[in-house]
């Protein structure tokens, strides 16, 4: 087990494409860090640099205090689970799991013991003699994890391990991975573009965009205090509403056709801002200060999405089914002060 520290990590491909731009963060020993972002944001490149599959152009990568920039993947004491599982097709499940241990000259009885233990945890004991092609997607996924577990590495790396599974299995395996991490307590780095996976698995989320870190924090932090417009819209479904406005007075933001009261803190009057409001934090009520026409309604079951317009922008309100009439043509609502996120209109950074 080990701490992972990245300092000023950069990746520039030949041809000048800068895939990763000066990244800094540290994952504590036993932490579960999820790198999340849209495709092409550099999250996989970062993971592959950690694994030693890509060279590090600049900066320093440490695993357990040791600088590993020029250390071979084999000597980094890491294990990786690939998106396509990368099981060796010509080897049985047992041999797939034993391969890494044999390469390290582990005695056969020790290998047998470890494989049996891992197989038990993952419930793949009956499959040990099979070849990968005789396994289902979920079983292959387990074997890939088993191959990582038996090695007892300092760090687990996951490269979108669930994206090849169907929706139901994905939820199931997500829980399994979390359970596994709670049992083994091995430092893990997990790459995904799925925000639900990121929120549920992580105790530390790193939101990335265009090769840069947008925000680092716990899932709760990232959700409740997004540091930028990018994070605000990327995390959370349905996405946060954003409405253009100007701070007209302390505690008041002027929108196109209405005003919103909120705490503006130290933001100067006259600043152009983006007002962010999560759809589920809007409070419906007949006595609400705002009123808007409903364009159409989406029924989700546990809640309902009312698509409307507010401050001249598209605006989604998420509310429990009982709180309003599904056929309502207009709604009255309040926006609590704490529900308002203010972002600088120019930089997109959070200002209040």
């Amino acid at each position: 087990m080990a701490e992972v520290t990245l300092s000023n990590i950069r990746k520039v491909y030949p041809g000048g494409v800068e895939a990763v731009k000066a990244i800094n963060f540290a994952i504590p020993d036993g932490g579960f860090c999820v790198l999340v972002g849209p495709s092409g944001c550099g999250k996989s490149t970062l993971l592959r640099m950690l694994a030693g599959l890509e060279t590090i152009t600049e900066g320093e990568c440490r695993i357990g205090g040791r600088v590993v920039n020029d250390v071979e993947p084999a000597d980094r004491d890491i294990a990786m689970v690939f998106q396509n599982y990368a099981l060796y097709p010509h080897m049985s499940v047992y041999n797939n799991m034993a391969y890494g241990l044999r390469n390290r000259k582990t005695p056969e009885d020790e290998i047998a013991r470890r494989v049996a233990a891992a197989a038990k945890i993952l419930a793949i004991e009956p499959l040990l003699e099979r070849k990968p092609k005789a396994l289902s997607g979920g079983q292959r996924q387990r074997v890939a994890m088993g191959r990582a577990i038996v090695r007892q590495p300092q760090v687990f790396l996951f490269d979108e391990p669930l994206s090849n599974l169907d929706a139901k299995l994905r939820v199931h395996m997500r829980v399994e991975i979390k359970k596994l991490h709670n049992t083994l307590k091995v430092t893990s780095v997990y790459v995904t573009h799925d925000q639900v996976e990121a929120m549920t698995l992580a105790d530390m989320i790193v939101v990335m965009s265009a090769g840069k870190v947008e925000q680092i924090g716990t899932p709760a932090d990232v959700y409740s205090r997004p540091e930028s417009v990018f994070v605000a819209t990327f995390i959370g479904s349905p996405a946060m509403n954003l409405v253009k406005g100007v701070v007209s007075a302390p505690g008041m933001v002027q929108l196109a056709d209405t005003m919103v009261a909120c705490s503006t803190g130290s933001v100067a009057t006259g600043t152009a801002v983006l007002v962010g409001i999560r759809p589920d934090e809007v409070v419906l009520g007949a006595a609400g200060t705002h009123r808007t026409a409903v364009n159409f309604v989406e029924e989700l079951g546990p809640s309902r999405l009312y698509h409307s317009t507010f401050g001249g922008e598209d605006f989604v309100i998420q509310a429990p089914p009982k709180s309003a009439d599904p056929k309502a043509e207009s709604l009255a609502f309040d926006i609590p002060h704490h529900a308002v996120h203010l972002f600088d209109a120019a930089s997109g950074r959070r200002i209040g």
Partner: protein
Amino acid sequence: MEKRTVFAGYSLPALLLVPQLLITIVFFYMPAGQAMWQSFQIEDAFGTTTIFVGFENYRELFKKPEYYKAMGTTLVFSTAVAFLSLSISLLLATMANKQIRGATAYKTLLIWPYAVAPAIAGVLWLFMFQPSMGMVSKALKSAGVDWNPTLNGNHAMLLVIMAATWKQISYNFLFFLAGLQSIPHSLIEASAIDGARPMRRFWTIIFPLLSPTTFFLIVVNITYVFFDTFGIIDAMTGGGPAKATETLVYKVFADGRLGGDLGGSAAQSVILMIMVIAMTAFQFKYIERKVSY
């Protein structure tokens, strides 16, 4: 999705098959049948009288020590050529598969020898190794090696092995390269993380995954050295010196065409035919099982 065409009757599919069948019958089955028939006959040197002798030609053949010598020669020749051309081309393909500068040029150049006709390839090597004028021979002489493939049987054998190997490397290289490229990159990465050094990675992951390609190439290469090397041998050594490079297929030609023993020569080709049929059957049986995984 598999596309299937369903024909209504028999006439159209039969018509479509005719050209291929015609070629097969005229150029393969008829000569084969003729050889078979001839192998049961003896003809006098002028081709005027022919008598049926049953298996006499075969009996004669297996009594002759030269036939066993030709078998031995073929064994040495084919093993050496198959082994050398396969291993050299695998090495080249492995290197070409890495991302190196000028990989395309390198690959193209490697494919060229395949376009050279066997006889021309033979002449090329013959010139280079010609005892009195060849540039390689001169270099060898100055290095103190008494090189003379026209007198020394071992030298001659070495020469035809080199030429035949050189000729076959291109073909093997292409297949190995395609095979290597079809191995998912993540497997190599996974084994690197699993602690396998490049050599171990090659022998435990890459080589086993290439086994269907390797197996296919072994069969093709054996067929090649058995039959297609005739041109090289004929142009370079003519089976000599003292029959040191006379392989089975060359002996068929030497006995029949040069020696005038049509019956004996036919018997030899029938034996070769049986060998190649056995080999092909063996290949189909295993290729269908996909070898190893």
